[in-house]
């Protein structure tokens, strides 16, 4: 019962942070939220007795993917723009 409680709490937290990552207009916050999703997922894998998968998720999901997205955001734009859809149009608009 205790185990199931912890697990459902983690699952709700996972869905909440995934939702936040989708809805957030500031992409940096969104990327951090995706990192949180990976962190919770890694803990859940550990609880499900899959330590190998948990390690992979921890190393790649939390660290490498998040950092790669942060670097990409530094190269491009931080805020999501509703009006302009594709990146190409966005660039022409800037110029």
């Amino acid at each position, binding site marked *: 019962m205790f185990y199931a409680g912890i697990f459902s709490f983690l699952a709700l937290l996972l869905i909440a942070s995934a939702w936040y990552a989708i809805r957030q207009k500031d992409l940096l916050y969104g990327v951090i939220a995706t990192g949180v999703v990976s962190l919770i997922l890694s803990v859940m894998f550990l609880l499900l007795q899959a*330590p*190998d998968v*948990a*390690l*992979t998720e921890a*190393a*790649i999901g939390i*660290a*490498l993917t998040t*950092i*790669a997205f942060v*670097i*990409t955001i*530094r*190269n491009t734009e931080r805020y999501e723009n509703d009006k302009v859809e594709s990146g190409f149009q966005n660039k022409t608009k800037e110029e």
Partner: protein
Amino acid sequence: MKRFLVIFLMLALGFYLIQALHFVPFGANRMGAPADKKTVAAFYLNETVPQTAVANVVTAIVVNYRGFDTLGEVTVLFLATTGLASILYKRRDEEETERVSKPSSTILQTGAKVLFPLVVILGVYVFVHGHLTPGGGFQGGAIIATGFLLMLIAYQKYHLSHSMLTWVESLAGILFVSIGLWGLITGGTFLENSWFPKGTLNSLISGGAIPIIYIAVGFKVAAELTGVLDILLSTKDDKSASNIQQ
């Protein structure tokens, strides 16, 4: 219109998934209990340790029984790295010396210097002990790549020689494939590892060729991911440099 198409596709997918899975009771163990000798799970759990002398059954499956899939995964990673490099690498040598981004803080620099060896040692531990404890080549390689990432972020001048990374990656890949081919020549199947002394269970030297393959995979993954991050970070410097010039 597009939205309706997406909804229709999702409904079709859901329909076929339900049709394939509706007769399985929710939460049922489809792989079968280990007590039932006929299932795949029972085979792996009962036969892995006597056959390969590997304590971590997951490693034995990933590297030996399903070793060909692992080779495919490593190849996919290699192709992804090559594609990324072919898109981004060209910009790097245009402005080699110009560094415009601000240097990082002393805290980050000192912390990186302290943490870097520890992170690399942890990564090496994870992939060397892949057949004994959870973890293995992919995980260890990714951990080592995070260590290099720390150094790349902390020190602007820190650069890795790409030819060295390519050599490490290629040699590790060649080692993996040649062990597999040697198994094909001597044992009859790809990655057959009965030609190698098994060693004793639960000791560092056990499992035949499995630790060697995982060490090769670890080096390969570490070199690939580090190369990706180095290329990404180098592009940042050049981009910001060109922005300022405009």
